[in-house]
């Protein structure tokens, strides 16, 4: 039930932001359509219903904190790309390679977040995920060492799978 209510609130919020009108008619339409969508397809959004809603909420807050750390990483990544593209030393430093990486993350969503974070941090891009093996393209040796140190994995694990974090 809690899940249904939260889906309804999410849909209604999206409606209000996108329509931008606050009179009774438009809000009524929004409530009606959000209700219909919630009733018809509520089992599509959250897969694992066994988890308690409070766990989800704490995950969400942890994720927001993680997003800020990730933003800083994205800025670093862009400075790195800028250096590679614009300077001669950068061109010399480049030595692309493909790295295999084993992960301990279990759930699909945690893997998705981890893969996207790898893509957004300096010099690494995820190519492929097979079960618990990641195939990562790294652009230089220093970046590869950074990746294999596993700091990011710890952060993702701390949010989504606390029992796995060290």
């Amino acid at each position, binding site marked *: 039930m809690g899940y249904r209510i939260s889906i309804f609130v999410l849909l209604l919020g999206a409606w209000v932001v996108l329509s931008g009108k606050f009179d009774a008619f438009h809000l009524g339409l929004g409530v009606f359509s959000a209700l219909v969508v919630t009733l018809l397809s509520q089992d599509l959004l959250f897969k694992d219903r066994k988890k308690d809603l409070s766990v989800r909420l704490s995950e969400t807050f942890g994720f927001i904190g993680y997003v800020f750390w990730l933003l800083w990483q994205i800025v670093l990544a862009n400075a790195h790309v800028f250096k*590679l593209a614009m300077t001669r030393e950068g061109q010399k430093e480049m030595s*692309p390679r493909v790295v295999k990486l084993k992960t301990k993350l279990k759930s699909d969503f945690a893997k998705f977040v981890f893969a996207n974070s790898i*893509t957004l941090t300096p010099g690494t*891009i995820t190519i492929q995920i097979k079960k618990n093996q990641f195939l990562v393209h790294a*652009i230089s040796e220093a970046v590869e060492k950074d990746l294999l140190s596993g700091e990011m994995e710890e952060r993702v694990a701390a949010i989504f799978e606390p029992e796995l974090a060290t």
Partner: protein
Amino acid sequence: MSFLFLANAPVVDESVQAELSRLEICGMTLAGLGLLFFLGAAVGLFRFPDFYTRMHAAGKGDTLSSLLILLGFALITFDDFSALGWLLLLKIFGIVLFIMLTSPTSTHALMRAGFEDGIEPVTNNPKRKKKGGAKKK
């Protein structure tokens, strides 16, 4: 320079707009930074040696530069604190969030498609350098 006639909007008096508010200066700085990062991405896309390295430039430069430019222009347009102004800010945040989610995903999809298509990554090993990159036309 006035482009407002294109939208039939009333032309704003220049003397009123002469000094910039703090929000506008912040927005301009952000948008300028975004343009700078996009310059890096575009040059990288132009001169990196192979598909995978170009992907690095495109996937990262694209995300951050769109993010910064959109946030900058959100600040530039956000001058009054009305409900509509906040709504506009929220919508632009929605676009930013969407780009942040989808850009790495499509990068990853393209990367996998290219890898499984058998494009060889360029490495520093001179023997493989000849084969790599432009294998398939």
